[in-house]
């Protein structure tokens, strides 16, 4: 009897799980093997720095109900490591605990191995109180360390750092945030919006220190605290340090298998790697950007979702080019921060005042809306930004005066 064709997915995170589910939705009749190292069923990461810290007893946000995998005939193998990939023989070697390794042949292979939190190579950085936040277990551990009377140093003024700072303040911890750059969110968010974010954190009591970084961690004696020695010469004694300085794509398997790897696993526009029948999606995937000017590794929920769907279709025989959904959000306190499209080097910026915040549109020389960024209380931003995303997606051309007019309902601009 001929063996059923088998699609093996390495990595049971957002991208891996979404790809598996999509294969079944699209009618794939062969085997689907979804392999993950963690003990948890596939979960969403965005809540780890927010809800998981604020209400630790809340259940994880799962990509799908656990029962769905069995219903869909998806073989979900948790706590399973992939030891190696043999692209010539089209097989992977799996290790379940202490069992003898198992060899599985694939017809298509998807690498959705994600990444690991970037650490600091500094004296004392291996102290257990110096943490990163990437996995559900990290959030569980961090959550137990927050609360009135505790002090947290957050290293990095990017999305993760700011979300952790907000959650820690909401739990009652004292928070010091160190950012090496001249402003918060310097990598991804326009300065005007980042300024609003800064003001909110300062108002909520976060001690923000720009242009400063850590030179060493020193275990202090009696207090049980750890001393953060800063480049500026100051020292801060804290109970917990959270490093939020980005992630490193997990490429070791791909590298060992001889795939083309730069920062991430390099793919073409259809998400195929350099090896036949091997695809990549999610945080680990380095794909050609749609401007044709280079490649990108995009760490976002929306990217993991959308790439997984395209990879699944293409593994079933399509050759769809991936167009990234340039959209990201962050939740801090009761505020939302959202960005869509390209917000850098616009010809014009049109700012629209929202209750408690603002929404900025970025226009090119032809007054096409190429990007949007907003920061405001969630209830005020969410709906406005849904409209903004649509305007950005189709690069609508609108007069700046209309866009910025607070009397003009934003929704009416969709049909204009």
């Amino acid at each position: 009897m001929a063996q059923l064709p088998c699609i093996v997915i390495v990595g049971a995170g957002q991208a891996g799980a979404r790809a598996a589910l999509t294969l079944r939705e699209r009618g794939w009749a062969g085997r689907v093997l979804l392999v993950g190292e963690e003990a948890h069923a596939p979960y969403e990461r965005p809540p780890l720095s927010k809800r998981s810290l604020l209400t630790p007893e809340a259940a994880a946000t799962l990509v799908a109900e656990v029962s769905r995998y069995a219903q869909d005939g998806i073989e979900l193998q948790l706590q399973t490591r992939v030891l190696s990939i043999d692209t010539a023989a089209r097989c992977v070697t799996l290790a379940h605990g202490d069992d003898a390794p198992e060899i599985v042949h694939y017809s298509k292979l998807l690498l959705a191995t994600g990444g690991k939190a970037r650490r600091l190579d500094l004296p004392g950085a291996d102290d257990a109180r110096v943490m990163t936040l990437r996995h559900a277990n990290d959030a569980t551990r961090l959550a137990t360390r927050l609360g009135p009377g505790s002090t947290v140093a957050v290293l990095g003024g990017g999305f993760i750092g700011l979300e952790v700072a907000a959650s820690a303040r909401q739990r009652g911890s004292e928070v010091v945030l160190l950012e090496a750059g001249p402003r918060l969110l310097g990598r991804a968010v326009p300065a005007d919006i980042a300024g609003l974010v800064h003001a909110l954190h300062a108002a909520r009591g976060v001690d923000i220190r720009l242009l400063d970084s850590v030179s060493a961690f020193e275990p202090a004696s009696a207090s049980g605290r750890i001393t953060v020695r800063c480049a500026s010469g100051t020292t801060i004694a804290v109970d917990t340090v959270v490093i939020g300085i980005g992630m490193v794509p997990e490429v070791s398997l791909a590298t060992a298998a001889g795939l083309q790897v730069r920062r991430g696993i390099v793919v073409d526009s259809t998400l195929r790697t350099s090896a036949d029948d091997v695809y990549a999606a999610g945080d680990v995937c380095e794909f050609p950007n749609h401007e044709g000017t280079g490649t990108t590794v995009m760490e976002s929920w929306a990217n993991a979702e959308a790439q997984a769907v395209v990879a699944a279709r293409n593994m079933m025989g399509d050759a769809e080019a991936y167009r990234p959904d340039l959209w990201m959000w962050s939740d801090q306190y009761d505020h939302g921060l959202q960005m869509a499209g390209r917000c850098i080097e616009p010809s014009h910026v049109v700012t629209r005042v929202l209750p408690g915040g603002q929404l900025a549109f970025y226009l090119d020389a032809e007054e096409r809306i190429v990007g949007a960024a907003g920061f405001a209380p969630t209830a005020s931003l969410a709906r406005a930004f849904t409209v903004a995303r649509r305007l950005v997606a189709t690069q609508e051309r609108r007069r700046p005066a209309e866009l910025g007019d607070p009397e003009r309902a934003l929704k009416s601009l969709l049909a204009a």
Partner: protein
Amino acid sequence: MSNWIDVCALDDIDDEDVMRFDHAGKTYAVYRVGEAVYATDGLCTHEQVHLCDGLVMDHVIECPKHNGRFDIRTGKALGAPACIHLATHPAKVEGGRICIAC
């Protein structure tokens, strides 16, 4: 027999819009499209987010968080990330007031 609950005046909700309504420990989303009204559970089935902050267009509510989309007439989930349908509740307009049956 359903128990009709008074929500608000029809004109309290803009055309093609949604409002949150809390009753007896539950939260609902109440919609108006022209003279027609609809009601569903108030929280997205994907990640417990209030749908009242979302956008209504062409009988579809889009969740403000992850853009899970639902048909407000049937509660049908219209694609990932929302996979679970939204519960709907009877709704009517009587004497210019919106009522729903919880």
